[in-house]
């Protein structure tokens, strides 16, 4: 503990020695046992272009399949009502569904990919927290965060469609099927290995 008045040494107390001893043990435990685990986690903080491609393709596929169902149902409904395929009603319905599909897919994929970047930033922020001795927060909710973004995109497209058209054939079909596409993309993205990584956090 140094000297008082510059001359007389002050004896370290038993408590101070114990504190130093325990701290030394804790530091040794950290450096040998915990730091290697941390280092492994720190190497895997960043999402890459492969993650983005996977999210983009799965999101597009999920939304696309729902619109395919909607289109099939719409077509069936119209044929049941003997709507002529060459009529403006039929062609207009197909075009509207296509436009809506394009909007929902573009918005959903953009948001999904953005969410992948968000995951990187969240992981970096967690690492900074750990470095400061603070608790990190799990990013396991990443899938649902991105799923929410997709749900929003689908919901917006659906609402626009409902607002644009007062045509039950289309809005009913889309409403019943499209919403379930929300969250499809990243539900598969949460692979077991990535889940395990998140548990380590």
């Amino acid at each position, binding site marked *: *503990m140094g000297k008082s008045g510059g001359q007389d040494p002050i004896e370290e107390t038993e408590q101070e020695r114990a504190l130093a001893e325990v*701290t030394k043990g804790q530091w040794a435990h950290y450096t040998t046992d915990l730091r290697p685990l941390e280092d492994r986690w720190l190497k895997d903080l960043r999402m890459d272009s492969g993650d983005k491609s996977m999210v983009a393709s799965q999101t597009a596929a999920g939304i696309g399949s729902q619109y395919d169902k909607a289109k099939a149902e719409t077509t069936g409904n119209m044929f049941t009502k003997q709507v002529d395929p060459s009529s403006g009603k039929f062609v207009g319905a197909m075009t509207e569904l296509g436009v809506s599909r394009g909007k929902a897919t573009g918005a959903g994929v953009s948001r999904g990919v953005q969410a992948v970047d968000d995951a990187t930033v969240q992981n970096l922020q967690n690492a900074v927290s750990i470095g*400061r001795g603070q608790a990190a927060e799990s990013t396991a909710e990443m899938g649902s965060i991105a799923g929410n973004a997709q749900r929003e995109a689908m919901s917006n497209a659906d609402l626009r469609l409902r607002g644009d058209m007062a045509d039950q054939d289309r809005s009913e079909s889309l409403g019943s099927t499209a919403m379930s596409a929300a969250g499809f993309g990243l539900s598969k993205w949460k692979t077991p290995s990535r889940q395990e990584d998140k548990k380590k956090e």
Partner: protein
Amino acid sequence: MGWASDTMAQITREQWADYQGRFQPIEGELQSYYDNPQKMAEGISAARAYSGKAADAAANNVRIGLSRYGQAGQMDDPAFSRQLGLNKAAADVDAANSTRAHIVDRDNLILAGGLTTRGL
């Protein structure tokens, strides 16, 4: 100096060195995301590209669907082309704007340190 004092001083130095070596670069990397014009431009560019591709793919899908009933020619009608073109342009602008807003929100959360609790 006594043993306890020297030990604590040594551990403190090692901890600081450890932080500087392993975590400070990550702090720098995190900071690089904040208010970064390049990342903003990349994000917007990517979103517009996805939006454009999605619009084109959707238009193609409509064409294929109509062709099953011999109505693909309807797509050449200027009214339909115009509708698809307008929607593509609107989706492009929407993608750029929403991405910009999203990145600004994220920037604010980075600065506030609340990114993980708020979520995006």
